[in-house]
């Protein structure tokens, strides 16, 4: 099999931003099926903008975004919704939905005009409930859930949408260490077991190094991309933050505060 055909997402010379204001330039990377990729970088560097551009919420400024080899803007919304799902930082508008109702909304691209669920839809919803340990919470309202539980519900909804690419904007914010690790482990399992391509933005660089197959560093210049170990070897993490404040220790893959 040729290498090109395995690429789910190919980004070349991408510029992102708002109108005349460019946020980041010349982003290049490719993602294959089954890869978990973290996007790291300091606040305001353009992580969310990149995600919003890839999700089609805002137009790119320049370059190419290829999904399955096709330009993203060529997809019509209904086809795209079967190939790309998102988990955003914004809360669901109505928290009066039950866990199961919210996850079931992920099946909308597949249901008829009234939204009737087929047997396959129900199986997929059940699989998502199981994968994210939500079975016992299925009839709870979303406003009754903790932050960690709600995050799992939102990711489970994306899984129910059954797309080859899942984009997540900061899925680990507001969570404690245990729940951060839990959600990232679940994402890793989803990517590896079901051959989903998952791209998420995060500030948890140390966790990303341990769990991701690929990391994209947005640094405002070269935007290095690759295997976490290679990125460490090439000392790409060292210049991520001002070195007088924090330093990266390549041996342990962690940051140390300068005292």
């Amino acid at each position, binding site marked *: 099999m040729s290498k090109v055909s395995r690429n789910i997402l190919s980004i070349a010379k991408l510029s992102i931003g708002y109108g005349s204001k460019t946020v980041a330039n010349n982003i290049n990377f490719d993602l294959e099926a089954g890869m978990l990729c973290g996007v790291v970088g300091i606040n305001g560097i353009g992580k969310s903008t990149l995600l919003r551009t890839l*999700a*089609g*919420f805002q137009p790119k400024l320049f370059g190419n975004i290829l999904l399955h080899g096709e330009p993203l803007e060529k997809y019509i*919304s*209904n086809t*795209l*919704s*079967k190939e*790309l*799902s*998102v988990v*955003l930082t*914004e*809360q*669901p*508008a*109505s*928290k*009066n*939905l*039950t866990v*199961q*109702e*919210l996850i*079931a*909304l*992920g099946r*909308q*691209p597949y*249901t008829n*005009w*009234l*939204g009737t*669920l087929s047997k396959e839809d*129900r199986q997929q*919803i059940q699989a998502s409930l199981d994968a994210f340990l939500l079975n016992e919470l*299925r*009839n709870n309202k979303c*406003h009754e859930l903790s932050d960690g539980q709600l995050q799992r519900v939102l990711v489970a909804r994306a899984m129910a*949408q059954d797309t080859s690419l899942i984009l997540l904007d900061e899925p680990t914010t507001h969570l404690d260490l245990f729940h951060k690790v839990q959600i990232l482990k679940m994402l890793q399992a989803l990517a590896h077991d079901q051959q989903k391509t998952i791209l998420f933005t995060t500030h948890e660089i140390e966790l990303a190094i341990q769990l991701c197959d690929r990391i994209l560093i947005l640094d405002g210049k070269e935007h290095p991309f690759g295997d976490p170990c290679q990125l460490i070897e090439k000392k790409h993490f060292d210049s991520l933050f001002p070195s007088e404040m924090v330093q990266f220790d390549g041996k342990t893959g962690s940051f140390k505060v300068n005292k």
Partner: protein
Amino acid sequence: MHVSKTYRISFIFLVLALLCSWLLNISSGSVSIPFADILSTLFGETPEVTSWEYIIWDYRIPKAFTSILVGAGLSLSGLLMQTLFRNPLAGPFVLGISSGASLGAALLLMGVSLFTGYTSFSFLGDVSLAIAASIGSFLVLLIVMVVAQRVKDTMALLIIGLMFGSITSAIVSVLAYFSSAENLQRFIFWSFGSVGNLSINQLLLLGSIVFVGVLLSIISIKSLNAFLLGENYAQSLGVSLKKSRLTIIIATGLLAGGITAFAGPIAFVGLAVPHLTRQIFDTMEHKVLIPAVMLYGAILMLLCDTLAQLPNSASVLPINAVTSLVGAPVVIWLLVRKRKMMF
């Protein structure tokens, strides 16, 4: 969306309640008619006093059906707006849409004669009143929608709706100042709200408007459900935002505008009924909520109209006042009890 429970019993209960309140509604009025005679007249017999037949068939039954259309339509428009604006306080009255309809009606009832010199209303049919009010509400709805895109803050949106109310009432005052006493009276009576006095043709027209509004709502069920997650999520689920939003706005404009044109501005039904419905139907699925709010709204409107009728007395209270007296405490009660209004 998955409906975990069936709501068959609740629906049966609501349909029965609707039937009872309909019977209650047509058996009360300024002329006291024994219940047995009402029933026999309904089944085609001629009652003891022949004028009763006329009263029942030509006055009370059309009025009862108007109440049903008005209650069901306004409640549905409230539900649509609460979902579209993701705001539990949205409703045709709060967002200034009823004010828009009032302005349209005022411009027609008082403005046309003022600017053109015509004093007779013979050429102004019911259709033009319906169109004027619908256009008024539709325009306000569009403006509110544009503002809602820019202002994400829901409080700001409600304040803008209030401001619209002030602007329209100011324009109405100016019109009223220059208007002739006769035209002014027409407008004042219209603004009290009334579900009586509709001819069969008017009733049919109102019925068709509500029917189209309901139809548009039904084809929007899927996008309404997706909007519960927010617009970005809805878009990622394949919902065409522009098209769905426009469909929902047209449905709301037709429902709120058409009803306001014929029955006058009726407060609180659109806001309160969706919340009352959610007390029984604990779901956000619009497939369930749409028929439920319509039934609930029809029942509430029939009961309010029965109250307005003041049993066995010739006086009729303005229906707008009655719905406010019933609706406002309900909203307060819901807020106090649940601390937080959710949709």
